[in-house]
């Protein structure tokens, strides 16, 4: 539903002059960014699949702090109310990045309301992270050693570290922004004695790691799906697990790659560029290991696996185009153009949303106890894949040709590619609508699912009955086999022996 502003935005870009007033378009893309980043991408997998699945996956009756978990839900709602109020009362036009001094001094829109929304919802994110960390450390069932932990849980653990350590920084940044906007404290606006580049450093110190908050849980989902539908133990379990932690750690050290043209020291840029390349290595390791997991496996083409194929392909493109942006001389040309838009939509929508849909389909029988119509599901996965590529691939070309982002109107020569993109977005919209309909239907009327329809491994599938009762297990389970033991081995086999 909140992706919808982007649809209207795309409609706007059908013609070079644009169909909407510029302010309207600016508010639409701002709303799209704020809602999708802070209220969808950040919480989506952790707050839905993570909340539901981390406890049974580690063999726990619930998260460590169920009441804090509920609190984080209420906080999220309160934050959402602030953001929606900002929209209803006339919108915000700063872009989701809130760059100062435009946001602190010049914008006449509801910046403070939207900023409070982001500020408040951040605490929801911190509390979720805290809960996962404690749960993973203290609530694992007997036999659930760290090396038997599902990779979904490893990914959530790494995500939680970022949430707990990174989110306070965006909260601080927003408080400073509010102080400048309301009290005219000179922090970011040079007219008041501040420094606008300081805002960018503070903002990206959270917001770059935040993209790993968004993508890591998706990677966790893909690891589960690829193993299950290849009926194979995951290839290089240790490498996949530790690459999540490596991404979380290195992800904190790359924020300056958003400032290559902003006027930061060229030597600082050089260091940030280098570390940005480094963080690509663990991401590549994951892709190679997923692919290798299928080798000599028994690969089935159920819907979750189709989304996993989509994820691997689109994340590969998204990741590789990230290297273009880490390469400074190329970044100078393509930053703040549609190339960047295409890159992060390939990672966030092609990656994270594909993983989310894959995960929803994979665990739908577990969560609802029912089956969805497989034919419709496969059809929708195909529509999403085609629509996605038609929407976002032309944007790589547009970006290199020089079309800047956040343009309500554009030069004539960019029209063909924009029309393609708008057409793709319409297909993508249909692709997202179909699952909403059949999943809602199946939740109520779908055929009853067997206990473990995929023959998947993991404590969450051993837990019975389905759907799980409030406290998952009556008797604490015992993990008495290696993780992803699809081949029925007695105990762990260390690689390289």
């Amino acid at each position, binding site marked *: 539903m909140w992706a919808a502003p982007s649809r209207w935005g795309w409609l706007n870009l059908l013609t070079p002059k644009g169909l909407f007033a510029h302010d309207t378009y600016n508010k639409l893309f701002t709303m799209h960014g704020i809602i999708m980043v802070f209220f969808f991408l950040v919480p989506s997998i952790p707050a839905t699949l993570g909340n539901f699945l981390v406890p049974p996956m580690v063999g726990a009756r619930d998260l460590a702090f169920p009441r804090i978990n509920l609190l984080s839900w209420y906080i999220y709602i309160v934050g959402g109310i602030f953001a929606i109020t900002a929209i209803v009362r006339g919108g915000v036009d700063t872009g989701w990045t809130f760059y100062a001094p435009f946001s602190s001094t010049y914008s006449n829109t509801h910046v403070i309301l939207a900023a409070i929304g982001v500020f408040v919802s951040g605490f929801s994110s911190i509390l979720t992270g805290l809960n996962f960390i404690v749960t993973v450390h203290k609530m694992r069932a007997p036999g659930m050693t760290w090396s038997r932990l599902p990779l979904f849980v490893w990914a959530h653990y790494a995500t939680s570290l970022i949430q707990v350590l990174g989110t306070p920084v965006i909260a601080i940044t927003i408080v400073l922004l509010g102080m400048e906007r309301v009290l005219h404290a000179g922090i970011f606006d040079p*007219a008041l004695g501040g420094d606008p580049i300081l805002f960018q450093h503070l903002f990206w110190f959270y917001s770059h790691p935040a993209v790993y908050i968004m993508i890591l849980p998706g990677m966790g989902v893909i690891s589960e799906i690829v193993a299950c539908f290849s009926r194979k133990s995951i290839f290089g379990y240790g490498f996949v697990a530790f690459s999540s932690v490596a991404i979380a750690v290195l992800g904190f050290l790359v924020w300056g790659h958003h400032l290559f043209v902003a006027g930061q020291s060229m030597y600082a840029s050089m260091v940030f560029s280098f570390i940005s390349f480094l963080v690509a290595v663990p991401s590549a390791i994951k892709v190679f290991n997923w692919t290798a997991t299928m080798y000599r496996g028994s690969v089935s083409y159920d819907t979750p696996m189709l989304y996993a194929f989509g994820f691997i392909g689109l994340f590969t493109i998204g990741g590789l185009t990230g290297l273009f942006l880490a390469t400074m001389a190329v970044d100078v040309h393509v930053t703040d153009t549609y190339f960047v838009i295409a890159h992060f939509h390939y990672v966030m929508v092609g990656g994270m949303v594909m993983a989310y849909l894959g995960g929803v389909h994979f665990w739908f029988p577990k969560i609802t106890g029912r089956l969805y119509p497989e034919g419709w599901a496969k059809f929708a996965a195909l529509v999403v894949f085609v629509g996605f590529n038609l929407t976002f691939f032309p944007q790589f070309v547009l970006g290199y040709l020089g079309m800047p982002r956040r343009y309500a109107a554009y030069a004539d020569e960019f029209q063909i590619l924009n029309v393609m993109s708008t057409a793709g977005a319409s297909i993508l919209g249909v692709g997202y609508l179909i699952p909403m309909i059949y999943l809602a239907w199946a939740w109520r009327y779908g055929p009853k699912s067997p206990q473990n329809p995929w023959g998947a491994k993991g404590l969450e599938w051993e837990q019975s009955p389905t759907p799980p009762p409030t406290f998952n297990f009556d008797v604490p389970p015992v993990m008495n086999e290696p993780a992803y033991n699809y081949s029925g081995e007695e105990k762990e086999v260390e690689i390289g022996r």
Partner: protein
Amino acid sequence: MGALSIFPPRASTTAGEVDALYGFLLVVGIGMTALIFFFVFFFAIKYRRRSPDERPKAIHGSIPLEITWSVIPFLVMLVMFAWGTKLYFQNYTPPRRDTLDIYVTGKQWMWKIQYPDGQREINELHVPTGRPVKVTLASEDVLHSFFLPAFRLKHDVVPGSYQTFWFEATKPGRYHIFCAEYCGTNHSQMIGWVTVMDPVSYETWLSAGAGGSSMAELGQKLFEQYGCVSCHVLDQQGRCPSLRNVFGNPVKLEDGRTVIADEAYIRESILNPNAKIVSGYKRDVMPVFQGQINEEGLLQLIVYIKSLSNPPKPAAAKTAAAAGKRSPQ
């Protein structure tokens, strides 16, 4: 360039170099994508489930493989890093040889462009081929970004500081100027054209627009108008330091530090004089000009102060000499 080209026009010395690097990245990127797609499809088809009872044997991994697919991509990325960094430093470090200096002020939602000889334009920039052009960027209000796709260059325009980059145009024509950093309602209208001309046409264009005062002369007028001249007495000991030969030279401060008097220093010393006090002078003598002078005026003052320094640049020499004559204090 055809209508379906994936490259915008190439009109600067660096455009071809950036495109070459981009081409390298495309080859690596497409190659890697093809490799992954091939193996995903190949494995998915070759090892498709043929019977529901299949129980493939576990393969837990391979250390040599993990090392291979970590190290090889890393080495390829090192090439990207080195190449990209070298070109970045080259594009953002103006050459020492004589540059044509152009001053750009971003303002919601237009580009104001000043030439040293005094021509001024809005949303239009004229440059000759074959001569390095150094662009100094200032902002009157919010962040902007001066983006020249045909030159493969952009730089943010940051209020409160000067940013510089340079280019050398190669191909006559008219190319886009875009604002690439979101700056409010009419961000998408903050666009203009750069016209690249051969040196002869450029000289013709330049002389057609001549007749007004040069930037240094305008700066000198401001210098007199704001009363700077009464304390900053040239070539004499006044209440404030003489500005002769200050620009580009080291200045000793009261706290013992020594700084180079560059554009940023002059700018700060005008807007907030107490930030750095020259050794031997008093605090609070000079009024604070923050909010009093617009960015264009500041740039003119700086060009004037530059013109007081040796060796004077050819364009400014005449003005500096004239300035000396006209200030007989």
